[in-house]
């Protein structure tokens, strides 16, 4: 099977792009796929710490692009999962060190090495974002059920359509089912109504995500975590499996259900 190149982006910062990349990477790799993650956020490197690989960096993406090392030398192998690799961003350079054609060339070489290339896009819609989507076969847009994140996601989806990168697929991250039940948070259906694109996953808010990032151990490695399960489901959908969406919005106590009914417009 040819490699799939997937870019994860969002427009707004802080919605969980890097967390999504790290978790999808470990979920795909623990299921046997060969995965290479590329940190596209030049100057604001983060994927290395989320994956717990920060102490092993020797070369970075700019070293590869500028010919100071071979591609393989910049691919850091994960200790837990031998078929997971990271190409870190450069920390002391800026976005101008990389062009879209540099990214295309790098990713073309990576396609031969693996089943999935996951590119972590920087926030915003500037050069770093354009570089990150340039080589993508598929783009995942991460958003939170919150007004500014949804608005920015809509801008990004508009740009993806204009650049003919396909409509993208949506990850709704940090959904709080209790708040949705009380109608104090946009539901997944509300967000989908507004953005009108394909949904690929809903990830519930989960303190395990923070704990995992503290330790450098993505939550998808924890079989009991709900957020981890959600990321594993997205990974399966990326491989073409048909995984049903778990209802996160519904449920609650009988009293909450009555309140919800009474509160309906």
């Amino acid at each position: 099977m040819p490699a799939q190149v997937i870019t994860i982006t969002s427009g707004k910062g802080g919605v969980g792009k890097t967390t999504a990349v790290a978790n999808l990477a470990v979920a795909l790799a623990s299921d046997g796929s060969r995965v290479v993650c590329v940190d596209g956020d030049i100057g604001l490197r983060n994927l290395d710490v989320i994956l717990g690989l920060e102490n092993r960096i020797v070369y970075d993406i700019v070293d590869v692009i500028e010919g100071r090392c071979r591609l393989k030398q910049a691919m850091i192998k994960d200790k837990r999962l031998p078929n997971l690799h990271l190409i870190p961003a450069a920390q002391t350079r800026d976005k101008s060190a990389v062009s879209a054609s540099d990214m295309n060339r790098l990713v073309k070489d990576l396609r031969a090495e693996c089943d999935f290339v996951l590119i972590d896009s920087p926030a915003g819609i500037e050069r770093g974002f354009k570089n990150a989507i340039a080589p993508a076969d598929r783009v995942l847009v991460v958003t939170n059920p919150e007004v500014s994140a949804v608005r920015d996601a809509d801008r990004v989806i508009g740009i993806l359509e204009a650049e003919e990168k396909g409509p993208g697929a949506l990850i709704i991250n940090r959904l709080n089912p209790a708040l949705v039940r009380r109608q104090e948070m946009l539901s997944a259906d509300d967000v989908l109504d507004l953005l009108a694109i394909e949904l690929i996953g809903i990830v519930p808010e989960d303190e395990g995500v923070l704990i995992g990032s503290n330790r450098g151990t993505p939550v998808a490695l924890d079989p009991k975590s709900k957020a981890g399960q959600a990321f594993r489901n997205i990974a399966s959908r990326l491989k073409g499996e048909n995984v049903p969406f778990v209802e996160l919005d519904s449920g609650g106590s009988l009293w909450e259900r009555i309140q919800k009914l009474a509160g309906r417009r």
Partner: protein
Amino acid sequence: MSFLEKLFGKKTSADSAKERLQLVLIHDRTDLTPAELELLRDDLIATISRHVEIDVTAMQFGMEHDGRSQRLVADIPIKSAARRRASSRKPKAR
């Protein structure tokens, strides 16, 4: 939000968020501000009124969306010919 507030029809914050986003996204996607939309509405009324008499008070004008594409929808009632004839029979101040 309390049960009583919901019972008496106070809007939930999720509803506010959705309604506000619906408007903001229309303007972001079309690059039309509410003021420009208002101007467009006035131009439309002026143009159509040159050809036929319309009922401006009953007119509907706004953006709708169909998936990710936006649609400008105007529903403009035309005053009936009988009423126009009746009003034209009145002596005109010429």
